[in-house]
């Protein structure tokens, strides 16, 4: 039923050996928030520090050469993983920074009167969706506020699908920024179709791929995106590294967000010129070891196979929807079928607040996330303040789903 040998994979993750609370085995169902790290990733980072740690790009000594090699080869690995070119990969701290980097390109270009594709003004529109994570919502509110552009959004249907209203994409639309997979609903959005509509109107198409790149095969060209953002820590990699991929010709014109060392061409006291991408967008000493760790994570995921990852998660999602659905008073927030759907299962229980439900699960050793999952407007849309979310990854198995269902039943009884 699953293409993965989960028992074998689990051995690669040291943390899964620990117990929580009163000696209960850890059932980690919070990978949508952050994933656990396999030994090979931790080894790669440590190996970097123990053997080739130095400042990159700027040093001429042997160690600096090796550090630069490690860093730039990480960039190539990550580029290949998403079907991009390494010059188009910018390392950020996380997806949030990647999305801010693009959004500041609009604010800063507008302030400075160019370059054109990034200039916005009153009458122009930015189109997002009601299912966005705050990371792909608040930055656009800021852009709208600072440029005078108007923020619009696609709604969400009762079954948790994107309600694509084509009339919202017009020649006033300058930016379309949409999540590839909802971190709450699990819904996978039809990005290629939306990108086509956006491009037909000359808009820039941005994709928040935070929940897709870690969980399924993603090819930036097939997506039809102009920019794609994701985070390392959600895909087996260290914290402290994220990625912005951008279309070469747009990156070439894009102004930097952060300025300082390593991103310059020439510096005088009163003015400076900037380097070509990706350096232009990586001011200061980068998160070198974290990028190296991310490349090791990509190697690990490629060995597992991204299609297998996706199928495995769809399989577990099916079990979870079935198991939770069999309990009284449970309502799934998100699609209850498996079409275009990834492994995030959010739900509410009659008479039990998600914080309390999560507490009972935690007491059973099951780690889930409760709250609005940084998607507050989406929760308002469904008339709930908070949900309980289970999210799956390659190290989860059928027993984990059973523990989730059993723990939820216990909560219903406890508060019943």
């Amino acid at each position, binding site marked *: 039923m699953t293409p993965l040998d989960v028992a074998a994979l689990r051995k690669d993750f040291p943390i899964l050996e620990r117990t929580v*609370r009163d000696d209960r085995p850890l059932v980690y169902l919070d990978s949508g928030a952050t994933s656990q790290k396999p030994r090979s990733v931790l080894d790669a980072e440590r190996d970097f520090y123990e053997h080739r740690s130095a400042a990159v790009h700027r040093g001429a000594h042997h160690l600096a050469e090796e550090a630069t090699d490690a860093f730039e080869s990480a960039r190539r690995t990550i580029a290949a993983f998403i079907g991009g070119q390494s010059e188009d990969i910018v390392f950020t701290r996380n997806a949030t920074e990647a999305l801010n980097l693009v959004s500041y390109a609009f604010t800063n270009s507008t302030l400075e009167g160019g370059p054109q594709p990034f200039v916005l003004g009153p009458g122009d529109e930015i189109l997002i969706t009601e299912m966005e994570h705050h990371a792909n919502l608040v930055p656009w509110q800021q852009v709208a506020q600072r440029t005078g552009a108007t923020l619009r959004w696609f709604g969400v249907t009762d079954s948790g699908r994107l309600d694509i209203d084509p009339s919202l994409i017009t020649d006033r639309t300058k930016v379309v920024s949409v999540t590839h997979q909802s971190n709450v609903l699990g819904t996978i959005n039809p990005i290629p179709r939306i990108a086509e509509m956006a491009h037909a109107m000359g808009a820039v198409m941005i994709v928040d791929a935070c929940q897709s790149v870690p969980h399924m095969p993603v090819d930036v060209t097939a997506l039809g995106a102009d920019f794609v953002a994701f985070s390392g820590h959600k895909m087996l990699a260290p914290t402290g590294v994220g990625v912005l991929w951008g279309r070469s010709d747009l990156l070439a014109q894009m102004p930097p967000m952060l300025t300082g060392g390593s991103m310059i061409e020439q510096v005088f006291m009163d003015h400076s010129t900037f380097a070509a991408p990706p350096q232009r967008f990586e001011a200061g000493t980068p998160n070198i070891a974290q990028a190296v760790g991310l490349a090791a994570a990509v190697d690990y995921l490629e060995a597992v196979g991204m299609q297998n990852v996706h199928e495995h998660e769809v399989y577990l999602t099916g079990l979870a929807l079935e198991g939770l659905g069999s309990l009284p008073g449970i309502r799934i927030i998100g699609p209850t079928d498996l079409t275009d759907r990834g492994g995030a299962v959010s739900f509410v229980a009659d008479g039990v607040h998600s*914080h309390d439900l999560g507490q009972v699960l935690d007491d059973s050793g099951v780690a889930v996330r409760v*709250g609005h999952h940084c998607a507050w407007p989406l*929760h308002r849309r469904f008339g709930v303040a*908070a949900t309980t979310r289970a999210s799956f990854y390659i190290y989860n198995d059928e027993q984990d789903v059973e523990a989730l269902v059993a723990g939820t039943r216990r909560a219903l009884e406890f508060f019943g």
Partner: protein
Amino acid sequence: MNLENLYQEIILDHYRHPRSKGLREPFDAEVHHVNPTCGDEISLRVDVEDGLVKDISYDATGCSISQASASVMYEQLVGKPLDQGWPVLDEFVHMIEGRGKVEPDEDVLGDGIAFAGVAAYPARVKCALLGWMAFKDATLQALGKDFT
């Protein structure tokens, strides 16, 4: 620490039957507090006269801990002079933020002592304090002072 320790009967009782819930008139100040992590909300009004807490009325959505805690607070503070109320509040905050290392004073806390178990769960600290902080904020406003 187990579930029964956290969710004492008193808490479940206040959660199921919150005392005197609902916003009332008259009042001197009204505040709205939110727990940004989970979206729990409370609107709270205080009616203070001559240093006496004449009424606390509130409307809240949230988990058992935040709901019960507001209800217990109502019982512990209404009808008390403020100079008796502040020490209760201080002791409650002290216990909740004490990470389980504080020996709470039942004489001061009354039913508030039922929340002792919360201190072991840092993620629930804000739930237990939501109503109490709203009370503090509203009362200071009623007295013309700043909430800090």
